[in-house]
């Protein structure tokens, strides 16, 4: 039975954000390795922002302050209250994962477990970019702004460093 970490914890906040932002098993071309890579890079971006919060409009060097920073992560500006559509989508993923009669259960369970594991990990992955990885965008939706340099695209998400 898969359950998410409590909403009030950093792990809970990050798990929900990763599930909302990473391309999951609902979509074409899904594979766990790419999704995991994508979420690990997102994890790194978040914690790099914790190191330099003001640059990304966060009011404090905390994960929740980074996630709730104005205009940064869609639907999470008022976390722990977050967008209803995201709540529903995540609940749908959990329901599928916990339904042994659903042929997609294993795939969704693996995806959610990977998000939880990454959010709970005491370390980020090592910095892979030539600078500091600090942003992501849906591939093909333009850059995150001035001063960002494209690093790589992973499974439909483009990552940028500063």
């Amino acid at each position, binding site marked *: 039975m898969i359950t998410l970490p409590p909403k009030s914890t*950093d*792990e809970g906040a990050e798990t929900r954000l990763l599930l*909302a*932002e*990473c*391309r*999951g098993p*609902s*979509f*074409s*071309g899904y594979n766990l390795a790419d999704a995991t890579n994508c979420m690990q890079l997102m994890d790194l971006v978040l*914690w*790099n*922002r914790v*190191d*330099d919060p003001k*640059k*990304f*409009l966060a009011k404090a060097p905390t*994960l929740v302050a980074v996630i709730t920073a104005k*205009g*940064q*992560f*869609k639907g999470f500006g008022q976390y722990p209250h977050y967008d209803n*559509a995201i709540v*529903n*989508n995540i609940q*749908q993923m959990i329901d599928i994962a916990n339904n042994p009669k659903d042929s997609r259960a294993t795939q969704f369970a693996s995806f959610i477990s990977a998000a939880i594991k990454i959010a709970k990990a*005491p*370390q*980020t992955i*090592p*910095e892979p*970019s*030539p*600078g*500091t990885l*600090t*942003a992501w*965008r*849906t*591939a*093909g*939706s*333009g*850059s*995150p*702004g*001035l*001063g*960002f*340099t*494209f690093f790589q*695209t992973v*499974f*439909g998400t*483009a990552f*940028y*460093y*500063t």
Partner: protein
Amino acid sequence: MHPPRKSNRSIAITTICLISLEIAIGLGFPQPFRAQACQQSPDAKMFNVASDPDFKNYQQVVTRFAKKHRPKAENNFCIIGSSTDNVKNAWVLWREGSQIILWEGGSDLDLSRRIIHLKSDVVPTEGDLHGSTYLVTKSWVDDLSRSCSRLGVKVHTRKVKGSHKQ
């Protein structure tokens, strides 16, 4: 509280990204779409959703979406495929809903992980983005709209019969 993480940070190197103002007009399939992207950002190649196995059900998908969200009126959609590094998706421009919806295949647009609300998620310039994961510039929206008008497929949905009784 999350445990402190090992500091494996490099010194930040800020590289000013030159803003490309190239406009994606007059392009055929497939062509790169460079809507206000950084010089080094990947080109998105447009493709026709009607001929792609993962997206050819576009009519069914947007019609179901329209019936669910705005059944009492006509709706107009423009859909254009976009491929980056061999990962395909499509942008669904919903005129009456003032939204641009990312569609990554599948049958349910409500599962989208990116819905751009044109009334709240569009900023004038790249200088207004500040690292946002979802805000877009007006020129990006304009470029996408132009490309979709020229190259995308269009779907018109009628008012659902009897919907006025709801």
